[in-house]
């Protein structure tokens, strides 16, 4: 079966298996499979579904791979800007979630020097404030899970 066709019909099962790798700590294999899925979406010019984005970022966070996490968030945010209009890949709420996650990633990536902590605090505060103002009660479990995980609520 062609891989892209399989993805269309069986995405939850693919992601489910990847999250099993996350739970079992098989990050070496899991990361390469996740990246293959995302590359396939990109090659087709298709919008990457939010569950894939959310679980991929969580996978990197679990791994402690903050360099890759920061790069991936940049990539998803840039893709949204490229798409624009009704074709945009992410909702504004999801973008704010990514910004919160990126702010938390900051100190893990650059180290907790006093200047970096101040910088990260400012970024977290601003990103989180935007998120709460947007509509906190309408978060799905995926989104709540990410926020819980990054210690923001």
């Amino acid at each position, binding site marked *: 079966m062609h891989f892209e066709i399989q993805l269309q019909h069986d995405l939850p099962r693919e992601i*489910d298996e990847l999250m099993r790798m996350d739970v079992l*700590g098989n990050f070496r294999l899991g*990361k390469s499979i996740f990246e293959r899925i995302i590359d396939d979406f990109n090659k087709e010019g298709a919008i990457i579904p939010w569950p894939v984005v959310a679980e991929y970022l969580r996978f990197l966070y679990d791994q*402690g791979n903050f360099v890759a996490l920061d790069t991936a968030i940049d990539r998803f945010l840039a893709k949204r800007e490229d798409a624009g209009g009704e074709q945009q890949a992410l909702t504004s709420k999801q973008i704010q979630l990514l910004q919160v996650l990126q702010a938390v990633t900051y100190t893990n990536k650059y180290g907790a020097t006093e200047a970096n902590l101040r910088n990260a605090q400012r970024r977290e505060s601003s990103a989180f404030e935007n998120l709460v103002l947007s509509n906190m009660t309408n*978060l799905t479990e*995926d989104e709540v899970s990410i926020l819980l995980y990054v210690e923001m609520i």
Partner: protein
Amino acid sequence: MNYIAHEYRESLPQSCFALPWSETSDEDALCPWVAHLLAEGRFWAAQDVLEVCFRWSGIMPYKYRLDLRALWNVISAFVQLDTAADEAPLLAKMAVLQVYLAGLVRRDFNISELHYWKDARDGITSTEQSLLKILGENVWKTSRPRLRLQLLDVDMDIVDALRSGQNSFNTTNCQHRLEATMKQAESNEDLSLYEAAKFRLAVLMHVVDPNDTYSYPSLIWSFPRALYVSWREKSLENLSKQGYESPIALAKGLRTQSAEIVQSYPPLDRATSPDRTPG
């Protein structure tokens, strides 16, 4: 049983995800929330909630109190469910038990809570047996839950040593176990666990002061700082009784001797990317 089920999550009313604690709620809201998530099969969300609640109660214990008995009742009921043939809930049981035990270890040492520790460890042992049957020894031995358990066991050995008032705690055994954990974590590309094991090793070898955990943001919550601070103070006190004039001078001496050993473990790929600068 799925690990995640997005279509199911989407169908749930959003009121399910009310925050367990807020300005107007109290600790009574936590247990029903965890119980609800476990009952609905949303194990990983339950695990996240537990983790965060332990963190909050650690930061502000006067505001966020944990009713450990009620919490244990919820977890215990979940652990006792008959899921022996199903991998996902078994792994979830292991994860929830480990979060609970790690949460207890991170709290200040409290003799009245020890029976909760024992209950949780017993639950982990029985769950481990079931997982071994399903996953097989090879998968289990290299898995993240197994590595986390090795770290927890080192933590609990230190608890035991402090509780029993051992004057000389032999760190060699802990060192070997932590090195084994690091080796497997490196093989799994599990950067988080690798750093967690390495930091414990550095503290045990007096290369770093556990009070320096603020320098390691991702470790702050996974590392039982109070426990290792107590151990370090006790260790330096015992060694100073053996003729060292100053614990500070002693620590410096130990650091010089041990630094090379710890530094021989390379940092995994989490360094700053060369094309990005902070700011």
